[in-house]
């Protein structure tokens, strides 16, 4: 039944529960407000949205008064304007609102309302309060004298991002927004997501980097996709000419709806860095690089590759694609290797992170991607998060988990570290590094033994139950407890909770995959969710958080040794036929190619004579740097294509300069299989070129003329045509929100949840009994500590981007994170220099004593060259997916 109310004398439709503000807005009547913030509980604080409601004793706040049938609301009366005007006048008297020097000038709601109410002189005495301007951090300027205490920043911080760094402080006219202890942001729990800045309706909070760069009316907005993690946040670039003045989260864009993290909001200026590669470079006899023309560089590469292929066959060349670059670049690179060079030796950095996901989930479900969508998080009933440090590695995804938790969802966290998400959890299982299979088997043991699993689901949709049962029966909670270090009671409690609250969303990241048993870990996660009947349903599924912005896409594009784009196997003759026809070649190789670590070893053994590295800093990112560099330095011919010189370009024979994010148009695919637009807003520096163009030109040099001459043409004319799962994905359809594959036709809406209702892509879900195996290297007498590795919030990979965006001021160098217990035993104080040594190398870094790591564990990252954990990590690999065991090796630690 349609319900109506009377708005300014006109019968107007509303939906039950709707507030006056919203209903009026939908009806085209704009009611001003300073404090209302979408997706948060209305506070009614500013009193600017007051309206007259017939029969009410006083004016009502439109933001927080629900509409009732027949209600008569007037938004434009003398009484309303008198009250609103007074509040605006009071606010103007409450601080220093000087528009001339304010960054918000032209984009300020207080200014707009002062103008509307024609307030020219201040009738009210100004407050005497004096506030200083805080600008001692790299990103945010806080000027409390411009603050109108609307509280939107507090709501953004506590309700939207749940970072909980700020609160209302003091009271009455002395009120101001405070951090813990009223310290500057720099010295607080603030993580610089900048959400407070985005929601500030005035100039109290502004972007430091934007200062003086442009007035609001000079800026034009361009929507694009974030270049950092795999969440795929939608950004609005605020451009003045070719300059990004600031970035805000797109309020209407999935999946982030306005939310961003520190990297996405502030980590953009690397594209303007003076360090950018601007011209092709060729190494000379003396080892120095000289500038070269594109022709010269292409000739050299073409000649060298031709020669090696001629002498040693196509499999003597190999390529590593880039997971940060657009889909169309990876597509063209694998096309170059397959169609022109005639080898399947093409891989990319999913190999060192989520290859076990692709392998494991494909084996279990028939598709190697995450099953559900980020939009489900906020309404989910339960989460099981294992091996994921979401708040740092995938901040925006974590916002929704935290929000759901605050709204009553249950949160179970299993991790070796007591990190931020663990601190919010209902149950925290502090598992030992590398014990995941045993721990998960223990939970499944309880579920099966106590008959708490979803028998009907299993019978209808899955195979292999007996095999699974046979395996997990050997992992009673007591045994699982012994291996994992989590008490049997906790394991039983988790099983009971998960059985009681269904469905739950299982979320994991690299804590699952980066093990020598990575694929087994992934399949164990799949087993658990199938056993509970949690796959193929809303608020359920197995949700791997993919690391880089386009690592999903690079996989989808076939930058993998065994599959063409769209996961079409190279070993299937019909697939080869199809691609031969499309690519105009007479043959395509039928044998899967080499994976990254085999390519690296191949450089040493000379089986691989030429390697083309596109956007991958192998010298810092591979395990056991000493060994990795030995491999790279033995390369006969190394082509490195990148936007910056880095530790890997040092080994190159030819360096090719690329266009970066913001300099080319194409698509990224996020961890929820969402294909989104990436737009170009500036020219690449010097003669740097789009990556797809570089591959296309090299192909041309070798006699192959490719038709597609832009990202759009590659996407629309090749991908959509050749890959059934992308058939409906066309540039014209993804102008705003992207589409989630599978998207089978131009009418298909995309697929938020795969394996819907237990109908697995592979037909039936495959349960599989899995035995626990320990990490390749475990702590012993000589190396008594376990080293595990990961990422920190403000940095990204080897810092090629974040190191040039001001992030170093937040986290300036590598540290060795150590427990209080171990530190005190070793006499180490916070900040003391320590030597961390493994069988492969040693580093000297400051110690960081924290309650996050348990006794016996050292934790580090690979962000910095100096103190990089990869000097220490073990080049041991997952048996199936060949992913290195970054998460576990043995070290010793001493005071330096």
């Amino acid at each position, binding site marked *: 039944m349609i319900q109506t109310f009377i708005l300014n004398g006109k019968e107007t439709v509303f939906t039950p529960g709707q507030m006056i503000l919203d209903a009026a807005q939908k009806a085209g009547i704009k009611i001003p407000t300073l404090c209302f913030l979408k997706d948060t509980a209305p506070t009614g*604080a500013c009193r600017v949205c007051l309206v007259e409601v017939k029969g009410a004793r*006083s004016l009502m706040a439109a933001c927080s*008064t629900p509409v009732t049938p027949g209600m008569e609301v007037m938004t434009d009366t003398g009484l309303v304007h008198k009250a609103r005007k007074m509040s605006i006048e*009071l606010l103007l008297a409450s601080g220093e609102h000087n528009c001339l020097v304010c960054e918000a000038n032209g984009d300020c709601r207080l200014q707009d309302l002062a103008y509307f109410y024609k307030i020219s002189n201040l009738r*009210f005495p100004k407050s005497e309060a004096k506030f200083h301007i805080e600008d001692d951090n790299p990103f945010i300027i806080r000027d409390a004298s411009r603050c109108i205490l609307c509280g939107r920043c507090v709501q953004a911080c506590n309700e939207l991002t749940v970072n909980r760094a700020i609160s*209302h402080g*003091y009271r009455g006219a002395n009120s101001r927004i405070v951090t*813990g202890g009223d310290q500057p942001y720099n010295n607080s*729990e603030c993580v610089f997501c900048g959400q407070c800045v985005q929601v500030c309706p005035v100039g109290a909070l502004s972007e430091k980097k934007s200062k003086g760069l442009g007035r609001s009316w000079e800026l034009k907005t361009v929507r694009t996709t974030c270049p950092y993690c795999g969440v795929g946040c939608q950004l609005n670039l605020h451009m003045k000419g070719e300059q990004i003045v600031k970035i805000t989260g797109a309020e209407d864009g999935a999946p982030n709806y306005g939310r961003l993290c520190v990297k996405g909001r502030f980590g953009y200026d690397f594209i303007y860095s003076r360090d950018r590669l601007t011209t092709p470079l060729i190494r000379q006899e003396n080892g120095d690089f000289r500038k070269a023309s594109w022709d010269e560089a292409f000739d050299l590469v073409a000649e060298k590759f031709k020669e090696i292929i001629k002498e040693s066959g196509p499999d003597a060349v190999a390529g590593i694609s880039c997971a940060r670059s657009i889909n169309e670049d990876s597509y063209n690179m694998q096309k170059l290797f397959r169609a022109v060079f005639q080898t399947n030796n093409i891989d990319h950095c999913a190999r060192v992170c989520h290859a076990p996901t692709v392998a494991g989930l494909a084996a279990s479900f028939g598709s190697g991607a995450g099953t559900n969508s980020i939009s489900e998080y906020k309404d989910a009933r339960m989460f099981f998060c294992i091996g994921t440090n979401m708040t740092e590695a995938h901040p925006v995804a974590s916002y929704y988990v935290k929000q759901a938790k605050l709204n009553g969802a249950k949160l179970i966290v299993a991790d070796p570290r007591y990190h931020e998400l663990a601190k919010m959890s209902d149950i925290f299982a502090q598992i030992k590094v590398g014990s995941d299979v045993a721990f998960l088997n223990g939970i499944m043991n309880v579920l099966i033994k106590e008959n708490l699993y979803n028998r009907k689901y299993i019978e209808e949709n899955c195979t292999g139950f007996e095999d699974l049962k046979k395996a997990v029966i050997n992992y009673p909670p007591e045994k699982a407890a012994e291996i994992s270090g989590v008490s049997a009671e906790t394991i039983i409690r988790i099983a009971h909770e998960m059985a009681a609250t269904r469905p739950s969303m299982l979320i994991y990241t690299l804590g699952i995959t980066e093990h020598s048993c990575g694929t087994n870990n992934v399949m164990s996660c799949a087993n658990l969710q199938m056993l509970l009947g949690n796959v193929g349903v809303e608020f359920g599924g197995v949700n791997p958080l993919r690391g880089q912005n386009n690592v999903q896409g690079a996989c989808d594009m076939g930058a993998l040794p065994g599959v063409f784009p769209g996961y079409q196997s190279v070993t299937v003759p019909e697939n080869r036929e199809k691609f031969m026809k499309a690519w105009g070649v007479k043959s395509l190789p039928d044998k899967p190619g080499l994976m990254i670590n085999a390519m690296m070893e191949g450089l040493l053994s000379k089986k691989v004579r030429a390697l083309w590295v596109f956007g991958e800093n192998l010298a810092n990112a591979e395990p056991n740097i000493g060994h990795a560099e030995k491999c790279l330095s033995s390369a006969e011919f190394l082509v490195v294509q990148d936007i910056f010189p880095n530790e890997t370009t040092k080994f190159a024979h030819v360096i090719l300069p690329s266009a970066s994010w913001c300099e080319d148009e194409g698509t990224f695919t996020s961890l929820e299989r969402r294909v989104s637009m990436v737009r170009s807003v500036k020219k690449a520096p010097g003669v740097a070129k789009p990556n797809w163009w570089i591959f296309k030109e090299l192909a041309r040099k070798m006699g192959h003329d490719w038709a597609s001459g832009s990202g759009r043409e590659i996407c629309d004319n090749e991908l959509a045509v050749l890959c059934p799962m992308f058939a409906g994905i066309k540039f014209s359809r993804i102008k705003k929100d992207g589409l989630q594959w599978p998207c089978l036709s131009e009418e298909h809406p995309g697929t938020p949840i795969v394996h819907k209702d237990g109908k697995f892509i592979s037909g039936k879900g495959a349960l599989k009994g899995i035995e626990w195996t320990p990490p390749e290297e475990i702590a012993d007498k000589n190396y008594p500590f376990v080293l595990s590795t990961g990422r920190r919030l403000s940095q990204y990979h080897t810092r090629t981007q974040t190191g040039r965006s001001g992030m170093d001021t937040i986290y300036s160098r590598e540290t060795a994170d150590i427990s209080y217990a171990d530190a005190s035993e070793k006499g180490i104080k916070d900040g003391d220099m320590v030597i961390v040594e493994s069988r492969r190398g040693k580093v000297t870094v400051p110690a960081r004593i924290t309650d996050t790591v348990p006794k016996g564990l050292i934790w580090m990252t690979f962000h910095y060259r100096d103190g990089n954990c990869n000097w220490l990590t073990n080049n041991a690999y997952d048996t199936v997916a060949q992913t290195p065991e970054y998460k576990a090796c043995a070290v010793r630690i001493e005071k330096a």
Partner: protein
Amino acid sequence: MNLGDREVFKEIIGRYPKRESAIVPIMQYLQKINNNYLSPEAMNAAAKMVNISRSRVYGIATYYTMFNTAPVGKYHLQVDTCVPGFLHGADEIVKYLSKKLGIAVGETTSDGMFTLSVVQDLASCATGPVIQVNDRYYENMTVRKANKLIKSLKNGKIPENHPSMNVVSRCGILLNDRTKRNCRTIGFYKDNGGYEGLKKAFTMKPDEIIDEVKESEIRGRGGAGFPAGMKWSFLPKKDPRPVYLICNADEGEPGTFKDRQIMEFNPHLLIEGVAITAYAIRAAKSFIYIRGEFSWIADTLEAAIKEAKKDGLLDHIDIVVHRGAGSYVCGDETALIESLEGKRGYPRVKPPFPANSGLYGCPTVVNNVETLSNVPYIIKNGAEAYRRIGILNNRGLKIFCVSGHVNKPGVFEYPLGTKLSEILKEAGGVKGKMKGIITGGLSVAILTASEAKDVSLDYDSCHKAGTALGSGGIIVINDTISIPDLALRTIEFYQHESCGQCTPCREGSRVIRDKLRSLVRGEGTMEDIDLVLHLCATIRGITICPTGDAFSVPIHSMITKFRPEFEALVKT
């Protein structure tokens, strides 16, 4: 820093259904064991203990006035200079102490012994001036007594407080005989017919009790006068969520000091009222939210609860005494709920109302101490007996508090509808010539002497006279007082107490204060007077909670009724 006793923290956290509610008591405990100072380390420790953010803890610490985020002296002397204190000569005491100790207000003596502060309303209006030393009151202060107090404190001796005031109970229902040493004990209470109402209640169905209270027509005694039985009947039926009963003991309206008379001397009456009401509304958990300054009264209540529990009277209800930490606004029921949830006392937007979504989002009834204390009589004697007291539409009795310029200030338990003149006579008559009178606590419109002449003390009569019965706090002002001074003192209180959440109250109270200040200093203009009137008229009714009205109504009335006094101050 003294980290405190693990067991104490465990006990505190155990009182509440949600851990976060324990934050204020934990901060209070940490402050108490650390020389009355809440250090940054203590705040961080508290945050960790209840798992909330540091910023939220800091927001709480700086919201409530009783938290000291800077070190204070061994003896923190806090003089109440709000309107009743002002009328009783509190300014003299401040001046004296400042001179005697050689420090200004807000300072600490160099030996770290004394800190001198002025505070707003300690609900000690008839026994003013009052000095609060740490958590003890010293009432009926004079310069001579203050001198003696300082001397004693210097010698390390904490003296007893011996307040004296006029207590008259015409009805004999709420106020007991406090001259009896054992007046607070369960034995005394039972000997005088106590807990018979509860016993009778247990023989009735919960809904029958609600009906009985409805029929008694008792209206809420906190100030708003909403029918109590009706409030209870708003609770949703057959709702799976727990129901909470909260007793509002955050007595803070200047001129009001009635609830403390019940709690301090007749605690079992309130406990019985809570027990019956909890049974009626099917609550298993109840909180008595008492203002933090009343710490010894809170102790009295806890002792009474212990006695009643031991006596097997409270098997159906767990009653927790929750101490506030210094905030007038927390007297608003939704601010009180927020505060009880471990937050700053910000009133909520309504709807939803507490009956549907109150404490922890559950159905909640909030009633004033005096309201609940009437319940035992109503149940024991029946609604009809209760209705026989008072007059039509204003049933029952009320404790009237009289402070200011009368000869014998105190509390007077009389039927509603009693003539104001009769109460004033009982209070020893007006000292000097009456200029104006406030009938319902500082937040209502002032009456001139002639307007007050025929007023009866009930809701309707006061309303008809253009004011309100409010909480029954009667403040008498004689002709030695300048109304602009009174207005400034009034706005200073509300400006100090404004929570700061909504614009008109936060900024409006500040601007009115600044304008009145300059007027009183002789620096104001005619336009300033009109500007204040404009603000008062516009603010009325548009703030989130009634605090906006609480200052705009009295200030507006003071100016309109005594305008010549304001105009006389305008510079020429």
